[in-house]
Protein backbone atom coordinates (compact mmCIF):
# COMPACT_ATOMS: atom_id res chain seq x y z
CA UNK A 1 0.00 0.00 0.00
CA UNK A 2 1.07 3.56 -0.67
CA UNK A 3 1.42 6.13 2.12
CA UNK A 4 -1.14 8.92 1.99
CA UNK A 5 -0.38 12.58 2.60
CA UNK A 6 -3.30 12.97 4.90
CA UNK A 7 -3.16 14.25 8.44
CA UNK A 8 -5.83 15.02 11.01
CA UNK A 9 -5.66 18.18 13.05
CA UNK A 10 -4.93 16.23 16.21
CA UNK A 11 -1.92 14.63 14.54
CA UNK A 12 -0.59 17.96 13.31
CA UNK A 13 -1.02 19.35 16.83
CA UNK A 14 0.72 16.37 18.39
CA UNK A 15 3.68 16.73 16.05
CA UNK A 16 4.07 20.48 16.34
CA UNK A 17 3.39 20.89 20.04
CA UNK A 18 4.98 17.78 21.46
CA UNK A 19 7.76 16.98 19.03
CA UNK A 20 10.42 18.69 16.95
CA UNK A 21 13.38 20.81 17.99
CA UNK A 22 12.74 23.08 20.96
CA UNK A 23 15.27 25.68 21.96
CA UNK A 24 14.91 24.94 25.59
CA UNK A 25 12.01 26.88 26.93
CA UNK A 26 8.57 28.23 27.37
CA UNK A 27 9.85 31.56 28.62
CA UNK A 28 12.26 34.24 27.57
CA UNK A 29 15.61 32.84 28.53
CA UNK A 30 19.26 33.20 27.74
CA UNK A 31 21.17 30.20 26.52
CA UNK A 32 24.88 30.60 25.92
CA UNK A 33 24.47 34.34 25.67
CA UNK A 34 21.69 34.28 23.10
CA UNK A 35 18.32 35.45 24.35
CA UNK A 36 15.65 33.09 23.19
CA UNK A 37 11.92 33.07 23.35
CA UNK A 38 9.74 30.10 22.86
CA UNK A 39 6.34 30.43 24.38
CA UNK A 40 3.60 28.06 23.42
CA UNK A 41 -0.14 27.99 23.30
CA UNK A 42 -0.50 24.72 25.10
CA UNK A 43 -3.30 25.95 27.34
CA UNK A 44 -5.48 26.76 24.34
CA UNK A 45 -4.39 23.95 22.10
CA UNK A 46 -4.21 21.24 24.75
CA UNK A 47 -7.91 21.53 25.36
CA UNK A 48 -8.41 21.23 21.63
CA UNK A 49 -6.34 18.04 21.62
CA UNK A 50 -8.52 16.64 24.38
CA UNK A 51 -11.63 17.43 22.38
CA UNK A 52 -10.17 15.71 19.38
CA UNK A 53 -9.16 12.70 21.47
CA UNK A 54 -12.74 12.33 22.56
CA UNK A 55 -14.03 12.70 19.03
CA UNK A 56 -15.67 16.05 19.64
CA UNK A 57 -14.43 17.54 16.39
CA UNK A 58 -15.13 14.71 14.05
CA UNK A 59 -14.97 16.82 10.94
CA UNK A 60 -11.31 17.62 11.59
CA UNK A 61 -10.06 15.47 8.71
CA UNK A 62 -12.23 17.39 6.32
CA UNK A 63 -11.40 20.78 7.83
CA UNK A 64 -7.65 20.10 7.68
CA UNK A 65 -7.82 18.89 4.11
CA UNK A 66 -9.86 21.92 3.08
CA UNK A 67 -7.38 24.24 4.76
CA UNK A 68 -4.48 22.63 2.91
CA UNK A 69 -6.40 22.77 -0.36
CA UNK A 70 -6.99 26.50 0.14
CA UNK A 71 -3.32 27.07 0.90
CA UNK A 72 -2.24 25.19 -2.20
CA UNK A 73 -4.27 27.60 -4.31
CA UNK A 74 -3.20 30.75 -2.49
CA UNK A 75 0.43 30.29 -1.65
CA UNK A 76 3.07 31.43 -4.13
CA UNK A 77 5.52 28.84 -5.39
CA UNK A 78 8.90 28.41 -3.76
CA UNK A 79 10.98 28.50 -6.90
CA UNK A 80 14.26 30.28 -6.63
Amino acid sequence: MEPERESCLVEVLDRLLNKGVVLNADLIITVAGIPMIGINLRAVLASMETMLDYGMMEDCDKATREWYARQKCMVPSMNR
Partner: protein
Amino acid sequence: MSDEAKYLYCIAREHEELQLGNIGIEEKMVYTIAQRDVAALVHSCPPEPYNTGDKALAEGWVLEHSYVIDQAMKKFGTVLPFSFDVIIKGNDDVIREWLDRNYERLQKELERLADRAEYSVQIFYDYDMYASKVLSGNCDLLALKEKIDEQSRGKAYLLQRNLDLKLKDAVSSNVEKLAEQFGLEIGSIADEVKAEERHSFVPEKYKDKKLMATFSCLVHRDNVDVLGLALEKINCLDGLAVRFTGPWAPFSFVDTGGV
Protein backbone atom coordinates in the same frame (compact mmCIF):
# COMPACT_ATOMS: atom_id res chain seq x y z
CA MET B 1 17.75 45.17 23.45
CA SER B 2 16.77 44.53 19.85
CA ASP B 3 13.11 44.65 18.90
CA GLU B 4 13.73 42.11 16.17
CA ALA B 5 13.08 38.41 16.47
CA LYS B 6 12.97 35.39 14.18
CA TYR B 7 10.36 32.69 14.20
CA LEU B 8 12.03 29.34 13.40
CA TYR B 9 10.40 26.70 11.21
CA CYS B 10 13.20 24.27 10.46
CA ILE B 11 16.86 23.72 9.58
CA ALA B 12 17.75 22.61 6.06
CA ARG B 13 20.88 21.87 4.08
CA GLU B 14 21.26 25.05 2.01
CA HIS B 15 24.09 27.53 1.53
CA GLU B 16 22.11 30.28 -0.20
CA GLU B 17 19.92 32.94 1.34
CA LEU B 18 16.57 32.59 -0.38
CA GLN B 19 13.19 34.23 -0.17
CA LEU B 20 10.51 31.57 -0.18
CA GLY B 21 7.42 33.75 -0.46
CA ASN B 22 4.67 34.79 1.92
CA ILE B 23 4.00 31.26 3.03
CA GLY B 24 4.56 31.72 6.77
CA ILE B 25 2.25 32.23 9.71
CA GLU B 26 -0.19 35.05 8.86
CA GLU B 27 1.37 35.22 5.38
CA LYS B 28 4.77 36.29 6.66
CA MET B 29 7.69 36.16 4.22
CA VAL B 30 9.74 33.04 4.92
CA TYR B 31 13.42 33.12 4.05
CA THR B 32 16.63 31.26 4.75
CA ILE B 33 19.51 32.47 6.89
CA ALA B 34 22.52 30.40 5.86
CA GLN B 35 25.77 29.62 7.61
CA ARG B 36 28.12 27.48 5.52
CA ASP B 37 25.78 24.81 4.09
CA VAL B 38 23.19 24.87 6.83
CA ALA B 39 20.25 27.27 6.83
CA ALA B 40 17.41 28.20 9.15
CA LEU B 41 13.97 28.90 7.64
CA VAL B 42 12.54 31.87 9.47
CA HIS B 43 10.22 34.82 9.33
CA SER B 44 10.74 38.16 11.05
CA CYS B 45 8.43 38.91 13.94
CA PRO B 46 8.19 41.05 17.06
CA PRO B 47 10.05 39.61 20.07
CA GLU B 48 6.99 38.07 21.58
CA PRO B 49 5.35 34.68 21.32
CA TYR B 50 2.29 33.90 19.27
CA ASN B 51 -0.43 33.85 21.83
CA THR B 52 -4.20 33.93 21.68
CA GLY B 53 -7.27 32.63 23.44
CA ASP B 54 -8.91 32.04 20.06
CA LYS B 55 -8.71 28.36 19.24
CA ALA B 56 -9.47 28.77 15.55
CA LEU B 57 -6.67 31.32 15.22
CA ALA B 58 -4.22 29.13 17.15
CA GLU B 59 -5.19 26.14 15.02
CA GLY B 60 -4.55 28.21 11.88
CA TRP B 61 -1.07 29.16 13.10
CA VAL B 62 -0.15 25.54 13.75
CA LEU B 63 -1.40 24.48 10.32
CA GLU B 64 0.52 27.34 8.71
CA HIS B 65 3.71 26.26 10.49
CA SER B 66 3.11 22.70 9.32
CA TYR B 67 2.55 23.93 5.77
CA VAL B 68 5.94 25.70 5.70
CA ILE B 69 7.66 22.50 6.88
CA ASP B 70 5.92 20.52 4.13
CA GLN B 71 7.01 23.01 1.50
CA ALA B 72 10.56 23.04 2.89
CA MET B 73 10.72 19.24 2.61
CA LYS B 74 9.70 19.46 -1.03
CA LYS B 75 12.38 22.02 -1.75
CA PHE B 76 15.29 20.96 0.47
CA GLY B 77 14.65 17.29 1.21
CA THR B 78 15.37 16.38 4.82
CA VAL B 79 14.77 19.17 7.34
CA LEU B 80 15.09 19.38 11.11
CA PRO B 81 11.65 20.65 12.13
CA PHE B 82 11.14 23.02 15.02
CA SER B 83 8.28 22.75 17.45
CA PHE B 84 5.59 25.44 17.21
CA ASP B 85 6.33 28.95 18.54
CA VAL B 86 10.10 28.79 18.86
CA ILE B 87 11.40 32.33 18.49
CA ILE B 88 14.92 33.68 18.78
CA LYS B 89 15.30 37.29 19.76
CA GLY B 90 17.71 39.10 17.49
CA ASN B 91 18.51 39.76 13.86
CA ASP B 92 19.88 37.55 11.07
CA ASP B 93 23.40 37.77 12.50
CA VAL B 94 22.25 36.32 15.80
CA ILE B 95 20.79 33.34 13.92
CA ARG B 96 24.00 32.99 11.89
CA GLU B 97 26.05 32.94 15.09
CA TRP B 98 23.71 30.35 16.56
CA LEU B 99 23.97 28.22 13.41
CA ASP B 100 27.73 28.54 13.46
CA ARG B 101 28.02 27.56 17.11
CA ASN B 102 25.79 24.50 16.59
CA TYR B 103 27.01 23.70 13.07
CA GLU B 104 28.55 20.31 13.89
CA ARG B 105 25.45 19.04 15.66
CA LEU B 106 23.01 20.29 13.03
CA GLN B 107 25.13 19.03 10.18
CA LYS B 108 25.50 15.62 11.80
CA GLU B 109 21.77 15.35 12.38
CA LEU B 110 20.95 16.38 8.80
CA GLU B 111 23.38 13.70 7.66
CA ARG B 112 21.83 11.03 9.91
CA LEU B 113 18.32 11.81 8.67
CA ALA B 114 19.25 12.33 5.00
CA ASP B 115 17.01 10.47 2.53
CA ARG B 116 14.73 9.48 5.39
CA ALA B 117 11.32 10.66 6.44
CA GLU B 118 8.81 9.97 9.15
CA TYR B 119 5.77 7.83 8.41
CA SER B 120 2.84 7.10 10.65
CA VAL B 121 1.26 3.65 10.81
CA GLN B 122 -2.01 3.07 12.60
CA ILE B 123 -3.47 -0.41 12.89
CA PHE B 124 -7.18 -0.80 13.66
CA TYR B 125 -9.13 -3.91 14.56
CA ASP B 126 -12.71 -5.05 14.60
CA TYR B 127 -13.48 -5.64 18.29
CA ASP B 128 -16.52 -7.90 17.73
CA MET B 129 -14.60 -10.13 15.37
CA TYR B 130 -11.66 -10.48 17.75
CA ALA B 131 -14.01 -11.01 20.69
CA SER B 132 -15.78 -13.93 19.00
CA LYS B 133 -12.43 -15.38 17.91
CA VAL B 134 -11.06 -15.14 21.47
CA LEU B 135 -14.29 -16.53 22.95
CA SER B 136 -14.34 -19.55 20.68
CA GLY B 137 -10.78 -20.45 21.67
CA ASN B 138 -11.14 -19.98 25.42
CA CYS B 139 -12.70 -22.90 27.38
CA ASP B 140 -13.25 -20.92 30.60
CA LEU B 141 -15.10 -18.15 28.82
CA LEU B 142 -17.16 -20.63 26.80
CA ALA B 143 -18.16 -22.44 30.01
CA LEU B 144 -19.19 -19.11 31.54
CA LYS B 145 -21.27 -18.31 28.46
CA GLU B 146 -23.08 -21.64 28.68
CA LYS B 147 -23.78 -21.07 32.36
CA ILE B 148 -25.49 -17.75 31.57
CA ASP B 149 -28.17 -19.48 29.51
CA GLU B 150 -29.16 -21.65 32.49
CA GLN B 151 -29.58 -18.80 34.96
CA SER B 152 -32.50 -16.60 35.97
CA ARG B 153 -32.63 -13.14 34.33
CA GLY B 154 -31.02 -11.22 37.22
CA LYS B 155 -28.19 -13.64 37.73
CA ALA B 156 -27.69 -13.99 33.97
CA TYR B 157 -27.24 -10.22 33.74
CA LEU B 158 -24.47 -10.26 36.34
CA LEU B 159 -22.74 -13.20 34.74
CA GLN B 160 -22.98 -11.55 31.32
CA ARG B 161 -21.26 -8.47 32.72
CA ASN B 162 -18.58 -10.67 34.20
CA LEU B 163 -18.13 -12.40 30.84
CA ASP B 164 -17.94 -9.08 28.98
CA LEU B 165 -15.18 -7.84 31.29
CA LYS B 166 -13.19 -11.07 31.07
CA LEU B 167 -13.59 -11.09 27.32
CA LYS B 168 -12.45 -7.48 27.08
CA ASP B 169 -9.28 -8.33 29.04
CA ALA B 170 -8.62 -11.38 26.89
CA VAL B 171 -9.05 -9.35 23.67
CA SER B 172 -6.74 -6.61 25.02
CA SER B 173 -4.00 -9.08 25.80
CA ASN B 174 -4.43 -10.74 22.40
CA VAL B 175 -4.31 -7.37 20.64
CA GLU B 176 -1.23 -6.26 22.61
CA LYS B 177 0.66 -9.36 21.51
CA LEU B 178 -0.33 -8.77 17.90
CA ALA B 179 0.71 -5.10 18.13
CA GLU B 180 4.09 -6.15 19.49
CA GLN B 181 4.54 -8.60 16.64
CA PHE B 182 3.58 -5.97 14.03
CA GLY B 183 5.93 -3.49 15.71
CA LEU B 184 8.80 -5.95 15.31
CA GLU B 185 7.92 -6.56 11.66
CA ILE B 186 7.84 -2.83 10.94
CA GLY B 187 11.05 -2.36 12.95
CA SER B 188 12.87 -4.79 10.69
CA ILE B 189 12.19 -2.46 7.73
CA ALA B 190 12.32 1.01 9.31
CA ASP B 191 15.48 2.59 10.70
CA GLU B 192 13.64 3.42 13.92
CA VAL B 193 10.15 2.79 15.26
CA LYS B 194 8.36 4.42 18.18
CA ALA B 195 5.09 3.09 19.55
CA GLU B 196 2.91 6.13 20.23
CA GLU B 197 0.78 5.85 23.31
CA ARG B 198 -0.19 9.46 23.87
CA HIS B 199 -3.55 9.65 22.21
CA SER B 200 -6.09 7.24 20.92
CA PHE B 201 -7.63 9.35 18.20
CA VAL B 202 -9.43 7.34 15.53
CA PRO B 203 -10.17 9.10 12.21
CA GLU B 204 -13.74 9.14 10.96
CA LYS B 205 -13.04 6.50 8.31
CA TYR B 206 -12.13 3.91 10.97
CA LYS B 207 -14.81 4.79 13.52
CA ASP B 208 -16.27 1.27 13.44
CA LYS B 209 -12.92 -0.13 14.58
CA LYS B 210 -10.67 0.20 17.60
CA LEU B 211 -7.10 1.39 17.54
CA MET B 212 -4.61 -1.43 18.06
CA ALA B 213 -1.39 0.60 17.79
CA THR B 214 0.17 3.74 16.35
CA PHE B 215 3.78 3.63 15.22
CA SER B 216 5.98 6.53 14.15
CA CYS B 217 8.58 5.17 11.78
CA LEU B 218 11.77 6.66 10.38
CA VAL B 219 12.14 5.11 6.96
CA HIS B 220 14.81 5.37 4.28
CA ARG B 221 13.26 6.29 0.95
CA ASP B 222 14.49 2.98 -0.57
CA ASN B 223 12.47 1.06 2.04
CA VAL B 224 9.12 2.83 1.78
CA ASP B 225 7.79 0.37 -0.82
CA VAL B 226 8.94 -2.59 1.29
CA LEU B 227 7.14 -1.15 4.29
CA GLY B 228 4.05 -0.58 2.12
CA LEU B 229 4.07 -4.26 1.11
CA ALA B 230 4.41 -5.44 4.71
CA LEU B 231 1.54 -3.16 5.75
CA GLU B 232 -0.59 -4.38 2.86
CA LYS B 233 -0.26 -7.93 4.23
CA ILE B 234 -1.45 -6.77 7.65
CA ASN B 235 -4.25 -4.77 6.02
CA CYS B 236 -5.46 -7.93 4.27
CA LEU B 237 -5.78 -9.90 7.52
CA ASP B 238 -9.33 -10.50 8.67
CA GLY B 239 -10.71 -7.75 10.90
CA LEU B 240 -7.68 -5.46 10.55
CA ALA B 241 -7.19 -2.15 8.75
CA VAL B 242 -3.99 -0.14 8.33
CA ARG B 243 -3.65 3.61 7.87
CA PHE B 244 -0.25 4.53 6.41
CA THR B 245 0.55 8.26 6.16
CA GLY B 246 3.58 10.33 5.25
CA PRO B 247 6.18 11.34 4.39
CA TRP B 248 6.43 13.85 7.23
CA ALA B 249 9.42 15.75 8.57
CA PRO B 250 11.15 13.64 11.24
CA PHE B 251 9.43 15.33 14.22
CA SER B 252 9.61 12.18 16.37
CA PHE B 253 13.21 11.38 15.57
CA VAL B 254 15.11 14.65 15.35
CA ASP B 255 17.67 14.89 18.11
CA THR B 256 19.90 17.91 18.10
CA GLY B 257 21.22 17.26 21.58
CA GLY B 258 19.91 20.45 23.15
CA VAL B 259 21.02 23.16 20.73
